Each structure stands twice: as C-alpha cells, then as structure tokens.
C-alpha cells in the first residue's frame, strides 16, 4: 500500500484547477496591495511551505525565516505574476530560491548525516510504534541527502508535483529532475538499508 499524503487526500485535477484560479485571483488582489487577500494566501500556503522549507533547511528557525522572506517577496512581486505558470509553482520557485540563498550563506554541508542518529531510532515494538519509528528513520535518512535531492523528494511525495512542475520550481531541465530523483532514491535506499541491518 502506498503512503503518499497527496494521493491519500484524493486531490483531483478539477479541484486543483479551481484552487489555481482562486489563488490567481488572490494574487491579483495582493498585487493591488490588498492585505486581506495576502493574509488569506499566507494561511493557505504556510503549511505547505513550512513542510517544504523544513525539509530543505532542517532548522526550524531558519525555515521560519525563509518562509517569511518568501511571503515578503510574494507581497512585493505579486504584480509580476503573469499566469505563465500556476500560482503555487511561482510561489514554490520563490521559496526554493530563498532557501538556496539561506543555505549558501550558511555553507550547509551537502552530504552529512550522523550514523548514530539513524541507529538510535531504529529499534522498538511492532504496530503503530513501529510505523512511527519507520517515519523517524525515513526523516533521518532524508537528512542525509543533499538539499537538491531532498527538494525533489519533498516536491514529489509530499507536495504531489509532476516532474515538469518541479523543473519549473527548481529552474532546471526535466531530465535534471529525473537524474536528481534517481540518485536521491539510491542514497535513500542505502541509508535505510544501513539502519535495517542494525535492527534486532
């Protein structure tokens, strides 16, 4: 059975179209300095951006700062949104650029994971506890991926984005997205296998 949050919520294409149009309408109002519209947009996007940026930065304080910067850019640049892409793709592209800028400032190590972190979460009883621990192991393993690889995984599995949309957000060719996903999967599999071997 698949465990994809987006799939389980049963989001249909028609519903997505409707959401995109409503969001484009909100952005048009934000462009004319309507603060109520901005706050509606902020509340709609905060959970998704928080999840995405937390996965990217792995630091709550930094992800909060980047989220704030992202929405500030949305407020300032809303009039430049030209319906050439979906509003959500436009906003996530801003978030991606802001996160990269913040990570570059910090010179984040690209491939760092503490093996002890993985092992410490790897034991426990069965059932719900086991599933939660699997989630913990997955979180720890994802932390071992580079920012680009984490972003591709996050946008695919948690945000339900198609390959072409991810390429638009990350401003790279579609083939680059596929290649990043290929190596992300390989590394994720190795890291999860590593913890599996330590299970009692």
């Amino acid at each position, binding site marked *: 059975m698949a465990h994809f949050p987006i799939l389980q919520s049963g989001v249909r294409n028609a519903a997505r179209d409707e959401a995109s149009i409503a969001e484009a309408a909100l952005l048009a109002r934000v462009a004319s300095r309507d603060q109520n519209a901005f706050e509606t947009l902020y509340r709609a996007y905060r959970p998704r951006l928080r999840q995405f940026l937390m996965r990217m930065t792995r630091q709550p304080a930094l992800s909060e700062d980047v989220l704030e910067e992202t929405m500030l850019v949305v407020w300032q640049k809303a009039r430049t949104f030209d319906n050439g892409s979906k509003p959500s793709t436009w906003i996530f592209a801003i978030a991606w650029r802001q996160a990269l800028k913040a990570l570059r400032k910090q010179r984040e190590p690209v491939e760092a994971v503490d093996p002890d972190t993985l092992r410490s979460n790897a034991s426990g009883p069965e059932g719900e506890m086991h599933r*939660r621990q699997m989630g913990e192991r997955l979180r720890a393993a994802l932390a071992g991926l580079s920012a680009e690889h984490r972003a591709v995984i996050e946008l695919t599995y948690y945000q339900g984005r198609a390959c072409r949309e991810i390429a638009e957000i990350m401003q790279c060719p579609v083939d680059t997205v596929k290649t990043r996903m290929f190596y992300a999967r390989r590394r994720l599999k190795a890291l999860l296998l590593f913890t599996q071997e330590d299970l009692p």
Partner: protein
Amino acid sequence: MNGRVLHFESPDHREIDRLLPWYASGAIEPDQRDRVDAHLAECVRCQRELEWLQSLPFDADALPAETEADIEQALQRLRGRLDAGAGQRVRLSLHNAHRGWRRAPVWTRWALAAQVALCCGLVAALLTQHTDAPYHTLGAANPDSAAQARLAVVFDPSISLVRVNALLQASGARIVDGPTATGAYVLAAPRADADKALARLRADRGVRTVVALSAPAGR
C-alpha cells in the same frame, strides 16, 4: 578480464525506472503511465522498485500541524515588515535618485532639466487648448474600467464554440484575456450585473469553474 560485472540496461528500462516515483505518486502524464504499465507487466526489477517506493511511510513523516496562535504570531511579525517595507522602498528610491543626480555629469543634468522644461511646456499647452466633449461609438469599450467586473472562468473541454457564444451573450460578459496556463479565460462584465453573470455561468454545465477576480465591494 578484470572481473567487473557489467549491467546492460535497455534505454526503455532506464527511462521507465526514472518515471517510477511519479507513477507511484500519481503525478504522471497519462501517456507516460501507459508506458510504465506496459513495462511493469514484464520487468521484475521495476516491479520490486515500485513496491519499495510504495512501502516508504511518507505519511508518518509529516510535520505536526500548528496552532492558530502560532500562525497568528508568525503573521503578526510579517505584518510589521509589510508596512516597513513600503516606507523603506520610497526612502530608498528617493535616496538613489538624489545620489544618481549628484553623480551625473553636468551635461546630463542640463539635458534632463531641458527635457523636464519641455514636458512642462507641452502639458501647459494642452491644458489651455479648447476641449470638445469625448465622442464614443456604441461599439467602443467602456473607458471606465472601474465600471467593469472581472471574472475568471474555465470552460468544460467538451463545450462547443456556439455554446460559449450563447453563454457569454446570456451572461452579458465578454472575453478580455486568456487562456492562462491553467486554461482559464478572463471575462469582463458590467459591475452592476456581475453577480447575475457569475450566477448564470456557475449554473451552466459547460463551465467547470468561475470566480470573481475583483475584490468584493468595500474592501
């Protein structure tokens, strides 16, 4: 012989393998899905890879939801920056303009001053001219855009052009922009009849979605 094991993968297998994550998440084009389906029927390696992808407990790794108080606190912080940002931008623009003027060569300053004087002269000449009442043909667009409400609409793909024309005439709206990336058209309708047009479009089966783009009155 150096003892290395070489793996030969068909280009098709390689391409399909790279599509599997989006096949598993459901965000894949229909033609790509058909190709993956056909390949999966005969490739055991891809079947196993798909099983592994589907076994990952992504739903157990989502962040816990925030409280309303957390969100309000974050929003409050941002509100302060929105107001500060506007004032700061005006100050910065004035500062940059002043700095640019001081740094410009003398001849550039004289040229700019002459242009400004010429513009002022032209404006003064226009204002003193006798002006006739504006003439509009019946078919001309209403110059007062405030009198027009804007609606975004997505038609059902099966709707015919004849039906779209009839619908637009019945609702008193006309297409002014589109289609956008999401297939939406922007319609303009007299503001006084906007609610009626919105209701008329919403009630029609040939319209998948319609929303008002203009801010509600009084906001």
